[in-house]
C-alpha cells in the first residue's frame, strides 16, 4: 500500500491517537499513513470530528498528556521518530523545523506581548540570535508577510491589528525559522473571503521562497482546488482516499469523496432564467460519532453502494496507481 515517491520530508506510518474518556478510549486517528513530499502542498480534508486537527496536533506532539496519547505508529522526520522523541527534542523541533498556524489568530497570539517580540522569540530560542538581530529579522518578516510600516507594527499588540493582519503575524512567526514543514490548521476559516484570498496567496508564495512543505488542513474543497497539489480525505479517523487534487476532483474513487464533491453547490449554476435551485445530491444521514466504535466501514450506513461486506469488515487503503489510493470495497472506477 505504500506509494512509490522520492524521500518524503515527513513520513507517517500507522499513526493512531486515542483519547481517554470515562466511557473508554476513543480512537480519533486510526492507523493513518501519509507522506509529505518536499515543497508540496498536501491538503487534509474532512468534516468536523474526522480527526484532521488531531492528526496535526499529534505530529507536533501537542496532545495533552492526561487526555490522550499516540498509541501506535511512527512519525519519521529527518532521522527521528517524533512519536517517541523526548519532550526536549520536540521543543527544539517545534517552531523551528516544523511549525504550525492555527485557525483563530486572536486566541493563538499572546495578547500582552508585542507582535515583534512574539516573532523574535523563536529566533532567539532556536537560532540563538541576540535580541537586536532577532528584532531586525522580526521586522523583515513582517515586511515579508506584507504588513505596511513593519517597524511600527512590530511594537503593537495583537488587539491593535485586524483579523487578516493577525493571521499574517501568525505566518511570520511560523516561518521565522524557515521550517521544512508548515502545518496550517484551517488558516483561513475565521477570515472573510477577500482576506482569505490574500492569505492563501501569501502562504503559497512564501512556501516557494522559504522552500517549505505545507500540510493544509481544511474542510473547504474550494480552498483545496485553488492551492492543493495532493489531497487526503479523512472520514471518522481514517484516511479514505488520497491522490493528486486534479485527479481526485475529476474522478473520486471513494463514494464519500464523490458525495462531498457533488453535494456542494457550484458557482455558475445560475442561468438567465434565474437560480437553478435544483435538488443537490445529498449524502443521507450524518457524520458518525467516533465514540461509537464501528465494525466495518464507517461510511457504510450513509453509502449508496454499501453491501453486506461493508458492514462486516473495514476496507484497507489500497494503492490504485503510483499516486492514488482508496479504502473502499466498491470504489468508483467508471
Amino acid at each position: 500500500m505504500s506509494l512509490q515517491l522520492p524521500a518524503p520530508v515527513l513520513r507517517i506510518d500507522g499513526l493512531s491517537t486515542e483519547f481517554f474518556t470515562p466511557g473508554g478510549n476513543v480512537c480519533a486517528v486510526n492507523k493513518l499513513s501519509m507522506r509529505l513530499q518536499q515543497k508540496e502542498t498536501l491538503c487534509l480534508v474532512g468534516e468536523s470530528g474526522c480527526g484532521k486537527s488531531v492528526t496535526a496536533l499529534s505530529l507536533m506532539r501537542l496532545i495533552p498528556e492526561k487526555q490522550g496519547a499516540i498509541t501506535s505508529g511512527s512519525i519519521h522526520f529527518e532521522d527521528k521518530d517524533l512519536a517517541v522523541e523526548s519532550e526536549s527534542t520536540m521543543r527544539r523541533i517545534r517552531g523551528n523545523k516544523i511549525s504550525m498556524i492555527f485557525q483563530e489568530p486572536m486566541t493563538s497570539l499572546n495578547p500582552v506581548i508585542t507582535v515583534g517580540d512574539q516573532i523574535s522569540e523563536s529566533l532567539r530560542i532556536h537560532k540563538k540570535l541576540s535580541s537586536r538581530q532577532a528584532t531586525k529579522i522580526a521586522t523583515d518578516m513582517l515586511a515579508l508577510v506584507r504588513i505596511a510600516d513593519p517597524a511600527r507594527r512590530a511594537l503593537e499588540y495583537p488587539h491593535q491589528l485586524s483579523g487578516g493582519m493577525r493571521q499574517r503575524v501568525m505566518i511570520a512567526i511560523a516561518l521565522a525559522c524557515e521550517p521544512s514543514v508548515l502545518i496550517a490548521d484551517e488558516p483561513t476559516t475565521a477570515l472573510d473571503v477577500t482576506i482569505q484570498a490574500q492569505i492563501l496567496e501569501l502562504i503559497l508564495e512564501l512556501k516557494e521562497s522559504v522552500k517549505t512543505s505545507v500540510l493544509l488542513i481544511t474542510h473547504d474543497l474550494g480552498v483545496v482546488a485553488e492551492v492543493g497539489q495532493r489531497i487526503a480525505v479523512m472520514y471518522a479517523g481514517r484516511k479514505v482516499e488520497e491522490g493528486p487534487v486534479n485527479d481526485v476532483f475529476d474522478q473520486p474513487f471513494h463514494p464519500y469523496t464523490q458525495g462531498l464533491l457533488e453535494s456542494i453547490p457550484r458557482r455558475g449554476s445560475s442561468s438567465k432564467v434565474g437560480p437553478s435551485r435544483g435538488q443537490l445530491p445529498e449524502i443521507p444521514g450524518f457524520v458518525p460519532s467516533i465514540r461509537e466504535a464501528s465494525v466495518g466501514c464507517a461510511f457504510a450506513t450513509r453509502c449508496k453502494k454499501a453491501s453486506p461486506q461493508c458492514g462486516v469488515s473495514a476496507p484497507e487503503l489500497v494503492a490504485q496507481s503510483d499516486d492514488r489510493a482508496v479504502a473502499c470495497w466498491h470504489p468508483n472506477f467508471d
Partner: protein
Amino acid sequence: MADEVIEVNDLKKYFPIQRNFFTKTTLAVHAVDNITFSIREGETLCLVGESGCGKSTAARTVLRLLEPTSGTIKLKGKDISTLSQQQLWHHRQHMQMVFQDPYASLNPRLTAESIISEPLTNYFRIPSDRLREQVRTLLEKVGLRADSIQKFPHEFSGGQRQRLGLARALALNPSLIVADEPVSALDVSVQAQVINLMVKLQDEMKLAYLFVSHDLAVVEHIGHRVAVMYLGRIVELAATADLFNSPLHPYSQALLDAAPEAKVGVKRVRKVLQGDVPSPINRPSGCHFHTRCPHAMPKCQTDSPALIAVDDDRWVACHLVAHF
C-alpha cells in the same frame, strides 16, 4: 407590487458607542445605513458581504429584534417599524427566524415537542391532542421522524437540529423567514440536505426568505435576487444570474473573484483585493469602498454614490456605473 411580503425603506441602525462629554457628539457604529429592499412571495433575497458589513444586523432589524434608528419596515403593507411591542406581537407570527448555530438556538432542556409547540401555544389555544398532531406534522414536514417528539436537542445531530429550528419557524405558518447563515455551522455533507429542504418548503408554502450568507456558491444556488453589502450599505442589488455573470460594482467583482471554487483545471488569474475592511465606526468618506477600489477616482473620496437603477430590478451604487 401587490405580492410584496416585506418592504424595507431607508432602514438605518446605528449603535452609539461613546459620547464626548464636552462637545456632546456621539460616536456610532453605522451598522446599517439607509438600506432599501423588498421581497416578494415565494422569493429568496440573499444578503451577502464580509463580516462587519451589517448583514446580520439588517436581518435582525427587519424583524425588530433590534430597534431601527430610522426607516420603515412594511410587513404585508403594514408599517411595523413604529409599533409598540404589544401591537407588534400580532405581526410577529408572520415573520420567523432561523439561526446560524443549531446548538445554541435550541433550549437544551426542552423536548422537540415543547420547542415546536411553544410558538403555537403562544398565539392559539389548542387542545393538547391536536397540538401534538400539529407538532408531528411539522416534524414530518422537515424530514424528521414523528416519533422523535420526546427527544431533547442533544439527541439530534447538527443537521437534524437545524431541521428542528426550521420546524419551529414554520409552526405559525409565516410569510417571511429570516435565515441568518442557516447552513454555515453544518458539516459539508449535511449542508445539501438543509438547502434542499429549504427550497422544497419555500416552493410548497410560498415563503419569502431573507437569506443571510457569506457562501457565494450557496447564494447562487438558492437566491432569486442578491444584495451585496459593504460597510452598512447595499452596493449592488440584482437578480442572481445578472450579479454572478456580470457584477457591476467593483466590490461585487472582487468578492466573486476572491471566493474559492471547488473546480480544478481552470486556474484563474485572481485580482486580489488589497487591505482590510475599514472600521464601521470611522468609515472612509464618500464611497466607503474607495480605499480598496482599483478604479477609485477623486470624486469617490468626496461624493457618496447613490443606489441607482441601471436596469429593471438592478441597482448599483458606484460612480463608474453612473457614467454609462
